[in-house]
């Protein structure tokens, strides 16, 4: 193995003091140990080439969550990203600050977005009683189950790449929902139903996730926030929280595919809004008219898929298994 490796970096810079807050790209090249991480390269730049480059980092061991940033367009914890894995043939790496968060300077983003989302889920144990002596009794399995979410180091990678937050800043976000799950699943917490109800009812709550999987893909600690969100939804429905467009959307989707073997999009839109929800239905009308003009309006009476009986059999087989 050669003594050193040449790393080429293209870093997005931002200086708020520069007139109007200028953004620009800057290229660097460093020669470092072949096993080095992207963070090692950036530290090398900062220490040897350009002291003005700002980034956060602390532990270098993927436990403090400081060094989230975008590498070639995807959020990563750069201390655990080896250069050879992202640039196997010495390609130039594009480094940018995380997305969906205000940039303070260069690769440093404001922590306000992330932590205001976390605070919305009241992220602390709310027990019904506190033992006067000793600890709460709980099974080891129930505690180990929570480790998935406790592995979260609050690096913000999931928030950075969340496609919902990109268009809706009010979404509570993947990290906060995973944190909420950590409490709804904790046998010591007494507010499970209240938490579920609030996350179910809240504008920007659990139903706003579009299941794009991006947070699962970029999470460096295996928290898989989207999976936690899906578990929250199931728990919320089980607890009887069904008066939401999210639940109606799920149910309509389920029923129309079961019945017709394909999705009835017109009905899905109306079901999700709710048949008596006149204001929401009026909101939908212009979308329907625009779609009709372009010839994109789905048929009002759905066609059945040729194989719809086989789809139904699949449903029955799966439901039979889960019973």
């Amino acid at each position, binding site marked *: 193995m050669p003594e050193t490796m040449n790393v080429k970096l293209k870093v997005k810079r931002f200086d708020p003091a520069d007139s109007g807050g200028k953004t620009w790209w800057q290229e660097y090249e460093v020669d470092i140990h072949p096993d080095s991480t992207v963070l090692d390269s950036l530290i090398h730049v900062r*220490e040897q080439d350009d002291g003005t480059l700002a980034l956060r980092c602390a532990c270098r061991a993927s*436990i*403090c969550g400081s060094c989230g940033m975008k590498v070639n367009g995807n959020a990563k914890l750069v201390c655990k990203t080896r250069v050879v894995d992202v640039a196997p043939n010495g390609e130039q790496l594009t480094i940018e600050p995380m997305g969906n968060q205000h940039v303070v300077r260069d690769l*440093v983003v404001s922590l306000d977005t992330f932590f205001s989302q976390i605070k919305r889920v009241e992220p602390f144990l709310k027990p019904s009683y506190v033992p006067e002596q000793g600890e709460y009794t709980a099974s080891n399995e129930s505690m180990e189950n929570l480790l998935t979410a406790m592995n979260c180091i609050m690096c913000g990678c999931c928030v950075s790449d969340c496609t919902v937050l990109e268009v809706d800043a009010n979404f509570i976000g993947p990290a906060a929902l995973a944190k909420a799950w950590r409490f709804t699943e904790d046998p010591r917490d007494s507010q499970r139903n209240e938490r579920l109800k609030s996350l179910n009812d809240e504008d920007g709550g659990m139903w706003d996730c579009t299941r794009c999987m991006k947070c699962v893909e970029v999470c460096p600690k295996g928290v898989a926030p989207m999976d936690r969100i899906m578990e929250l939804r199931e728990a919320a429905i089980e607890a009887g929280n069904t008066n939401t467009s999210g639940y109606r959307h799920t149910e309509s989707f389920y029923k129309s595919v079961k019945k017709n073997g394909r999705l009835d999009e017109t009905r899905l839109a109306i079901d999700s809004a709710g048949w008596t929800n006149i204001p929401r239905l009026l909101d939908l009308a212009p979308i329907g008219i625009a779609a009709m003009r372009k010839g994109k309006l789905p048929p009002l009476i759905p066609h059945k898929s040729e194989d719809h009986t086989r789809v139904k059999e699949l449903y029955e087989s799966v439901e039979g298994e889960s019973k």
Partner: protein
Amino acid sequence: MYEHDVLIIGGGLAGLRAAVEVTRAGADVAVISKVHPVRSHSNAAQGGINAPLTDRGDDWEGHAYDTIKGSDFLADQDAVEIMSSEAGEAVLELERMGVIFSRGEDGKLGTRAFGGQKVARTFFVGAITGSAILHVLFEQSLKLGLNVYEEWFVTKLIIEDGACRGVVAIDLKTGDVHTIKAKAVIMAAGGAGRVFEPSTNALICTGDGLSLAYQAGVPLMDMEMIQYHPTTLARTGILMSEAARGEGAYLLNSEGERFMEKTAPDYMELASRDVVSRAEQTEIDEGRGIDGNVLLDLRHLGREFIEQRLGYLQEVSIEFLGIDMAKQPVPIQPGMHYIMGGIKTDVDGATIVPGLYAAGECANVSVHGANRLGANSLLDTVVFGRRAATHALEYIKNVGAHSEAEEDIASEKARLQALLDRQKGERVATIRNDMARGMTKGIGVFRDQASMEGALENLANVKSRLSGFSIENKGKVFNTDLMFGLELQFMVDCAEAVVAGALTRKESRGAHFRTDITERDDENWLKHTLVYKDETQEHGNRVETSDVTITQWEPVKRVY
């Protein structure tokens, strides 16, 4: 200008535990930290937290004695008695706050074995115990609405009429300099690992708190006691928790021998850290290492067990070295890890400066003496973080209103501006690396008069260059370049105290192992070293000594 009853510097375990205590008492408290609290280095504690729980057949005296023996009898026994007897309640309280400790079949907290102790009394969360506790204390801080100055960097303590009355700090996000007045200040700013290179410590562990207190006239105690952790990952220096050995891992040399049999036949891999690190270094020095490492072997524990109980270690081993621990042993070496020495405090966290308290790694109570037991550092933070808060609350009852004096901020602004105004000079990182490598070389696992004098000489060279470095970034917003320059000055203070303490102690004890004086000398050296800042002296300091407090355990020969 900002004002609080109590200001806590540092948002790690000691700082947040203290903050919870002050908040509960209804006093006005704030935490100030150069990083967001969840970025603190308490995160990096992996293996667990010790507590002798009496309802499980353990007794606090057993833990106290193991701690004192581990300390090579340098710990103050009154302080250890307090820590051990308060340990159980401190850990149970963390559980009641929400920490998801691993449990046994009965649904009660479970334990694992740890070094230097025959009783398994280490409570844990996988291999992320520090992180799991830190995040829960952070949750509590949100619940209590704790005021945190996030990413503010303290540059100076305000001392008025001999008492600590606040700080001067830079808000890194704006670059503005402010004073924060306080009736009492609790220093919980963490360790100084970056004084050495390599180190398991985060890049933020630059001894800021130790230096600030030292500058204010408080002695730093037993600074020569530097812990080299026996298992740090080859090349990267990343910590591999003692939990691996606690759960049964072997240490092997190049000949496949469990070499601990030679030095610690009874405790084997679970001897005290200083003992294991020396044994490893001896293997490496005598040619039975592998490229400067020995091997940590977990294969016999099985994949399922490794992934369940030591998941983070497996993650790190695969991510950084590409080694699957279930299939292959991992190359490891001793690495600088912890500083037993620190700001001298009494058992209530009080320093000799009224209104200034200290807790956690930056403090020296002293409970770790010449060698800290694994899983005692987390315990130290919560027990003494709470005690410092309790005592500070008492102290502020008799403190008058905040003063109006503003001279501190003017002089600090001028000092910082002068740093920024320096034209083309040496890079901070170059000087820092020279300092840190010189420290590792001179004050290593093994040391002698010549190596320590080498460190002193190197440090003199480093100090002479401090007036010549320049800050490339002249901007205000998030100017980490300026912060690194200030941190270097803090680190040099710490290095100075380490070297002074080391040259003073004419014996081998715990982590201070001199190859030229290999024996412990209780007759002359059952003493603490106290380094005071003193510019009238040749090396900028003077060293005094004080007796170790012995309550019920007379020093005996330390055998594992």
